[in-house]
Structures are given as structure tokens and as C-alpha cells.
């Protein structure tokens, strides 16, 4: 086992059968990510960015190829195994925050702990409050999501992703719905999390992403174009 890389994709291909024939979302993608890395996946829409993210978080399965996360192969797990694996290992952040509207911010952060049962019940509220403090919105804890700004909602969503202390964070255009000033604050937050040991894979359209992330993967037509060059 090569434990140096936390994430290893080897020959991952994903095809969809459609009316217009076979569509290749991903072709023979190979990718390695080390623990604590902050990786940006960039590329035009339809290039396969979100597909990779869905593979890594176990929401989608490859047609062929292997996906290793640490010592675990997730490409051959069934739905139930994936759900149980995901809740311990992956936190997901969405573009549109996706906080549950009828729960307070604090309750939104506690919800994954409630579903997973890893954190003992009496420690959940304290942990959720500490996470909200970490993302800088502890004073909003008892408000409903609709009362918060977009940036605050995304911070809450990040706190929720960290609820069960996963090693891996997946973010799908987390700044895509935020103004540039707020985007920078969110990216700063991710950078800090990476520095504290979380491995982060982020799909993004942000320009000048290199000053935040440790590496960039560029996709075009379902293939990795290169590992570093940007916007060429």
C-alpha cells in the first residue's frame, strides 16, 4: 500500500449512455492527492470536474478504474457501505450552501452528528459551537439560515462539513455564489483548514486560484490536461 497519497485515482473512466450515443464524462483519469493538500479542479463546464468530485465523495461510481482513499477502495462499495464510509471520511460543501431551512445554524451543524452517531450526544452542541467559532459565525448559532448572508451561510455549511471530523473535504464551487470579497474570506478559511491537516478537493471557477491552493488539476473533455499550468 502506498500511504503517501491519501487519494489515488487510476484509470477512472465514466460514461453515460444517452440519446446521442455514449458520452465520456471522464477518460482514464489518474490523480494523486497527498494528505493536507488543497487541490483545485478547474476546467470548462462539462469537462468532468463535478464528476470527479462525485466519485471522490462516493455519490457516483466509475464505469471503470479504481479509486483509493487511504487504504479503502470505494469504487466497489455498495450504496449502504458508501453512506457509512462517507459519513466518517468526507465532508461536502455545495455551491448553494444547502442548509436545511427549518433548522437553526447550530442544529444544521449538529445534524450530521445526529445521523452518524460518532460524536456522543452530550458533546454535539459544544462541538457544533466550537466549529461555528472556528468559521467565525458563533454569534449566528440560533438563527435560521434565511437570516444569514451568503458568506455566513457558506461558513455554516463548512462547519457542517467538519461536523464528524472527516479527513477529506469536497467543495463544489463553494465561492460560485459569493461576491469576490466574501469568496476570498472563504478561500482563506479553506486554506487554514488545509494547514491544520484537512485534505481539500475543490471544484472552482475562481481566477488566480494558485495563491490559495497547493495544486491545480485542469480538466478538458474528461481528461487531465496538466497538473500545474493555468489558463493557458
Amino acid at each position, binding site marked *: 500500500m502506498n500511504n503517501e497519497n491519501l487519494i489515488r485515482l487510476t484509470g477512472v473512466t465514466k460514461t453515460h449512455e444517452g440519446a446521442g450515443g455514449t458520452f465520456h464524462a471522464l477518460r482514464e483519469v489518474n490523480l494523486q492527492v497527498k494528505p493536507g493538500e488543497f487541490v483545485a479542479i478547474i476546467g470548462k463546464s462539462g469537462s468532468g470536474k463535478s464528476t470527479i468530485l462525485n466519485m471522490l465523495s462516493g455519490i457516483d461510481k466509475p464505469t471503470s478504474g479504481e479509486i483509493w482513499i487511504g487504504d479503502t477502495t470505494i469504487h466497489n462499495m455498495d450504496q449502504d457501505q458508501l453512506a457509512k464510509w462517507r459519513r466518517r471520511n468526507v465532508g461536502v460543501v*455545495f455551491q448553494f450552501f444547502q442548509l436545511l*431551512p427549518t*433548522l437553526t445554524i447550530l442544529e444544521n451543524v449538529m445534524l450530521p452528528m*445526529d*445521523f452518524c452517531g460518532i460524536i456522543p450526544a*452530550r458533546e454535539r*452542541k459544544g462541538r457544533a459551537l466550537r466549529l461555528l467559532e472556528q468559521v467565525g459565525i458563533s454569534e449566528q448559532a440560533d438563527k435560521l439560515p434565511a437570516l444569514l448572508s451568503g458568506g455566513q451561510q457558506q461558513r455554516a455549511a463548512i462547519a457542517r462539513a467538519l461536523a464528524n471530523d472527516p479527513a477529506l473535504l469536497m467543495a463544489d464551487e463553494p465561492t460560485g455564489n459569493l461576491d469576490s470579497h466574501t469568496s476570498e474570506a472563504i478561500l482563506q478559511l479553506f486554506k487554514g483548514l488545509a494547514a491544520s491537516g484537512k485534505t481539500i478537493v475543490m471544484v472552482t471557477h475562481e481566477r488566480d486560484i494558485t495563491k490559495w491552493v497547493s495544486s491545480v488539476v485542469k480538466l478538458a473533455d474528461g481528461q487531465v490536461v496538466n497538473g500545474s499550468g493555468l489558463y493557458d
Partner: protein
Amino acid sequence: MEVVYMISVRWRKVLGDLWLNKTRTLLAVLAIAIGIFGVGTVLAGYSILTHEINANFLGTHPASAILYTENADDKLAAAVESLPGVANAEPRRIVTARIQAGPNEYRRLLLFVIDDFNNLRVSTFKLERGNWPPADREILIERSALPLIKKEIGDTVIIQTPNNGQDHELKVTGIVHDPGQSPGDVDNIAYGYITLNTLESLGETRALNELRIVVDENSKDVTRITNVANQVRDVMEKRGYHVSHVEIPNAGKHPHADQMDSLLFLLEVFGILALILSSILVASTVSALLSQQIRQIGVMKVIGATTYQIAGLYFGSVLLLGVSGLLSVFLLACGQAGHSRYSQRKY
């Protein structure tokens, strides 16, 4: 200090969602309540109408057959009772009269003339309050007629009999309950119970013209009742009594049994309709709830919920609606119970 939540966060979400759509939640609870109430009413109606009223009615030893003659008496009754197949026989007379209910206002009155109030054996009834038996020129009134004639114990009633049409005054000395009669306030008819002496004082001939018999077994078997009644008629005619005709009342059935059947049918239809409609309403409410929450279900799965956990949440939420509906129908039923008790008294 850390506080453990009394209700876990996921159930707070369920409650929050129900609260957010208050109108829809209320509608669903109401629909369930109406459905349960409809079916409950039908079931209660069945149990009251089929069981309790029948038991009440059969408890009066209703006549299996009535033989009409000129002058039935106790001697005849005793002779007939000794015949095989006859459990009881009792002479009676029913006079259709009028009773004054107000100035120039008369109601139909069925006068039951009874030879011996202390030895009722067929078509019995019970004293509810007042004196038993009535003395001469006294009358007992069936309770369902009270709202009709607006009289009470101690009052004097004015009665006209067909023979001479004159006003006669009788004193009300008791109120009885006769489950064998259809309710007087429904049929707009009063029932009175008097002695032979009183009958004579009203200008009628002193005679009982019916012999009512009860068969000893199979009281609902019309063929058997007919056989026994024919046998009794033969014996009566041998003894010189002329039997003008024999009546076999609808065996073992309350006089309002047919109305009850129609009522039951209506109840049944409305109950089933209410149940179907409320089921449709609940089903559409639940499917609206689910389709509104597809995105949230997806999010919950991504943050770690298993399919079972999510199914549990929505089942729980439907269960909560059901229990709320049940509770509200329980409160409704408590109110209804009082009314039913009143209605039941009439039969």
C-alpha cells in the same frame, strides 16, 4: 455547560417542516380526523343499532303472533299458555284515541289496555318514575311522548276515544319506557297505558280484543310461529272464541328496523366516502411534502443519513399526523358521546 437536546436534531427538522406548512399540516390532521370519525361513527352506529336496540327490544318479550277476537281474558290466556309451543299468552287491547296537546290541538294516542299490570308477560314495559300500577281514571305515558303532549306526572290529560268522541280527563301518574314502540316524538304519536276500568269510564266496551302470544323457541322462525298461531286459533275456536284474523309481526324486529337499515346504509356510505376522501387528501399531502423535500433528502444523504434514517423521518412525520388526527377525533368523540347517549334513549 453542555445541554443534551431533548428531541434529536433530525426530529426537530420534522417538527419544523410541519410547523412551516401549518395550513397543510392542519388540513392533513383534519382529513385524518374526519376519516376516522366517519368510520368510527359507522361502527358505533352498527353496534348501537344492531346490538343494543335489538337486545332492548327483545327484552320486552315482543309478541310472536297476535290473535284478534272479541273478548280475550285471563282464563283463555291460561289455557293457551298450556299449549305446546306457547311460552306466554296475554290478553290486551289497543285503542286508537286522541290526546289534547294544547288548545284545539290533538295528537294521535295509542291506548294500551292491560288487565293486570303486575303480571305483564308479553310486550312488556317498565316504569321509569311515578306510581305502578295506574288506578282507575289514571294513565301511564310513554316517555318519548312527553315532548309531544307537554305534560308531566300529576297533570291532567284530556282524551277522546272513538266511541263517543267526548273529552275525558285522566291523571298522569307515571312515566314508562316501552322499547317495543317506535319513538313517539319521531312518529308524532303518544302511547298511554290504562286499566280495563279506565277504558270503560272512557265510554268504550269493557273487553280485550287481542290475545298476544310468544312462542317458546325459535322466536324468529316465521313458519314455526305460523304453525303455533294456527294451532292456538283452532283451540280458541273450539272454545267458542271467534278469531277474526291472526297477525304475525315482523319476527324479532323492532318496528323501526327498516328505517334503521336505511340509516345504517347511509351512515356506511358517508363513513366510507369520508375515509376515501381523507385518504386521498393525506396521500396528496404526503406526496407534496416529499416532492418539496427531494433536494433536502439529497443533502441529508450527502451529510451522512442512510436511506433507513430518512425513510424513518418521513414515516415518523406521517405517523405524527396520524396520531394528531386520532387525538383530535378522540376529543370530538367525547363530545359526540353525550349526544349519542341522548339519541339512543329514544329507541
